[in-house]
C-alpha cells in the first residue's frame, strides 16, 4: 500500500511536468496550427532562466577574508549579502521560486520573438517544413546554451526550508515509510495551479474565449473582424511561459543541461498525441496518465512479470491508445490527419 501511494505520487509529479510541457505544445498546435519541435528547447530555456537568475543573485565581489590574517586570502562576497544582509542570504536561498519572476518576462520575450521572427512565416507551410525549421531552431538554441553553460549538468538547489521530505504517511494514516520530498510536492501543486490558471484564462476571459473559438474554427473567427493574429502571438508567448516555468521549477529535481529539451521533446509529443492533438484537457489527462503508468511499470513486481516494460511503457500506451481511439483520448476529428 505504501509503495502504491508513493508510486502514485511519483506518477503525479512526473505527470505534472509532462502535462505542463504538453499543454503549451498542444495550445500552439491548436491555435496556430504549428508543430513546434522547439518546444522542448523552451522547457530547457526555462530551466536555464532559473540557473541564470541564480547566477545573478550570486554576483559577488572579491574581498579580503577577514578570518585569515596570516596571508591575504580572498573570498567571494555576494553583493546581495553586502547590501541586504540576512535578507539577501534569504533571497539567494529562494532563488528557484523567485526565478519565476525572472522566467515569466524572459520566456514571454523569447516566445514573442520566436513567433514574430520565425514561426509566423510558417503558418501556411507544411507540417514537415514546420518540423524542420523548429528542429533547426531547437538545435541552435541548444548550442547557444551549450557555449555559455557547457554540456555538464548544473546543480540547482531548492530553498533550505524545502529540502527533505514530508511525512505525509502519518498525515493520511499510512506508515512512517510514506515520505515525499517537499520540493516535489510543491512542484506537483505548482503544476496544478499553472494548469488551472491556463484553463481559467481560456475559459473566463474574453481573450481566452476568442482563442478557444479560434482553435475550433479559425476562419470564422477571422471573419468576425477580430484580430486573431495578435491574440495568437500572445498564445505563443503563453505557451513559452508555461514551458519555461515547468523547466525553471524542475531544476532542483533534474539538474539542467543543454540537452534536456530534446529528451522531453519526443515524450511531450507522445503525450500530446495520446491526449489528442489540439485538445488541452487531453494533454493534461494524458500527461498524468502516462506519468502514473510509467511509475507503475517501473515497480519491481511489474518488471519481474514483463522484463523491460519500464523501457517501453510510454510507447506501448501510445500505440494501444492510438489503435483503439484513432484521435487520442480527447482528439477532434480531422486534426492533423492529412
Amino acid at each position, binding site marked *: 500500500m505504501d509503495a502504491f501511494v508513493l508510486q502514485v505520487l511519483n506518477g503525479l509529479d512526473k505527470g505534472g511536468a509532462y502535462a505542463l510541457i504538453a499543454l503549451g505544445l498542444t495550445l500552439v498546435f491548436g491555435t496556430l496550427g504549428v508543430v513546434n519541435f522547439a518546444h522542448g528547447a523552451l522547457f530547457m530555456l526555462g530551466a536555464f532562466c532559473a540557473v541564470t537568475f541564480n547566477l545573478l543573485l550570486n554576483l559577488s565581489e572579491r574581498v579580503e577574508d577577514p578570518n585569515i590574517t596570516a596571508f591575504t586570502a580572498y573570498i567571494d562576497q555576494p553583493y546581495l549579502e553586502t547590501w541586504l544582509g540576512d535578507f539577501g542570504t534569504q533571497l539567494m536561498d529562494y532563488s528557484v521560486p523567485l526565478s519565476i519572476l525572472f522566467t515569466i518576462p524572459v520566456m514571454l520575450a523569447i516566445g514573442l520573438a520566436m513567433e514574430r521572427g520565425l514561426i509566423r512565416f510558417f503558418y501556411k507551410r507544411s507540417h514537415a*517544413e514546420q518540423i524542420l*525549421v523548429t528542429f533547426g531552431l531547437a538545435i541552435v538554441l541548444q548550442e547557444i546554451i551549450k557555449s555559455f553553460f557547457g554540456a555538464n549538468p548544473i546543480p540547482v538547489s531548492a530553498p533550505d526550508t524545502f529540502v527533505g521530505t514530508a511525512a505525509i504517511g502519518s498525515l493520511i494514516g499510512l506508515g512512517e515509510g510514506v515520505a515525499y520530498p517537499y520540493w516535489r510536492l510543491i512542484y506537483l501543486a505548482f503544476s496544478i495551479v499553472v494548469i488551472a490558471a491556463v484553463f481559467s484564462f481560456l475559459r473566463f476571459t474574453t481573450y481566452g474565449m476568442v482563442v478557444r473559438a479560434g482553435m475550433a474554427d479559425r476562419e470564422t473567427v477571422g471573419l468576425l473582424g477580430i484580430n486573431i493574429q495578435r491574440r495568437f502571438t500572445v498564445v505563443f508567448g503563453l505557451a513559452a511561459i508555461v514551458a519555461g516555468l515547468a523547466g525553471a521549477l524542475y531544476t532542483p529535481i533534474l539538474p539542467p543541461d543543454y540537452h534536456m529539451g530534446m529528451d522531453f521533446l519526443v515524450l511531450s509529443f507522445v503525450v500530446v498525441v495520446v491526449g489528442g492533438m489540439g485538445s488541452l484537457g487531453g494533454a493534461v489527462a494524458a500527461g498524468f496518465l502516462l506519468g502514473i503508468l510509467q511509475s507503475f511499470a517501473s515497480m519491481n513486481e511489474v518488471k519481474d512479470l514483463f522484463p523491460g516494460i519500464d523501457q517501453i511503457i510510454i510507447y506501448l500506451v501510445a500505440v494501444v491508445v*492510438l489503435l483503439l481511439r484513432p484521435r487520442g483520448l480527447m482528439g477532434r476529428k480531422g486534426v492533423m*490527419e492529412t
Partner: protein
Amino acid sequence: MMITRSPRHDMMMIGVFALVVLTMPIWLAPFGAAYPDLLQKFVIFGIMAVGYNILFGLTGYLSFGHAAFLGVGSYSAVWMFKLFTMNVIPAVIIGTLMAGVFAVVIGYVCLRRSGIYFSILTLALAQMCYNLAYSVLTPITNGETGLQIRPTDPRIIDAMFLEPTERVPTTTLFGIDMTGYGGFYFCAVALIITFFISVRIFRSPFGLKLRAIKSNQNRLNYTGINTRPYLLIAFVISGMYAGLAGSLLAVTDPLAGAERMQWTASGEIVLMTILGGAGTLFGPILGAWIIKYFENIFSAFNDGRLHEIFSFLPDTLESIAVGISAQFVGEGWHLTLGLMFMLIVIFLPGGLIEGFNRIVARLRPGQARRRAPAVEEKEAS
C-alpha cells in the same frame, strides 16, 4: 509536370548519375571527402534516403521509425556473418528481407492511422525496438556494445571451405575485401540499382497513385482505389531500402549497434530528405550527402586547422576569424547544422533541388516559363 519522361531520357539520367557516383573518389578529393568510410556512408545513406523518399516524398506519410529497419538490416547481416559466411551476398539479401518482414508488421499496424498519428505510431514502435535492443534483447543484439564479429564465431559455410585464422575475418565479395574501396563500389552499384528502381516507381502508375494519396486521399477513395495496400507496399519498399542500407553498413563495417535505431537516427533521414527536396528524385540523395559531409568534415575541424586556414590573415584578424569560426566547426558543428536547416527551410522551402531549379531558371530566362523543371520538377508544394 514531368512525371512522364521518355525512357531514353531516364536512361541517360541514370547513366549520368552512375557516372557521378562511381567517380566520387576523384571529384570528392578536393573536398577532403574521398576516403572509403565517408564514400561508403554517402552511398549507403543515399540508398536510405532514396527509399525513404518513396514513402515520404510520394505519399506524404512522415515516418519517424525508419531507423528501426536500418537496425534490423544491420543485425541480420551481422548474424549472417557470424553464423554462415563472411560473403556479403547472403547478408545483404537476408538483411533486406528481414527489414521487409518488420516493415510489413509495423506498416500494417501504423497505416491504420494517418497524419501525425501515423508519425507517432512509427516513432513509438521504433523506440520500443531501440530500447529493447539496448537492454532486454542483449542476447541477440549484444546491447550497448553492439554485435561484433569474433574469431570464434561458427561461420558454418566458411568453415567448410576456408582455413581458420586467428584474426577476425573481414567481409568479402568472393574474395574482394568489402571494408575499403571495394565496399564503396559494391554499395555504389547498390545505390545505382536502387536509384533505377526508384525512377521506375516514380514513373509508374503506382508512383502516380502514391502521389495522388499525398495530394488527396479522400478523392482517391471515391475513385475506386483502396489506398491501404498501396501505402503498405510503399512502406515495405522503403523499409526494405532501409534494411538494405543497414546491411550495407554492416558489410562495410561489421558491427551493429542499437543506437542506429534511435529516433534521432530516423530524424536524420527525415532531415536529409526534406533538405534535399522531398518528392524529387535526386534531392534526398543530395541531402544525405550534405548532412554526412557536415557530420564528418565539419566536426573534425579544430583550432589548429582553423589557424592554418586563416594563416593568410594578419595575426589579430586571424585570431578573430578563428575565434568566430570555431563556434561553427569542431564541437560547434551542430550549430552549423541547425542554422543550415533553418536557412534552407526559410529560403528554399522545396529543398536544395528547388534552389538549383531557381538558379537554372534564372540563367535561362527564355525557357524558364515553359520548362521550369530544369534539374527536376518539384512535385509537391
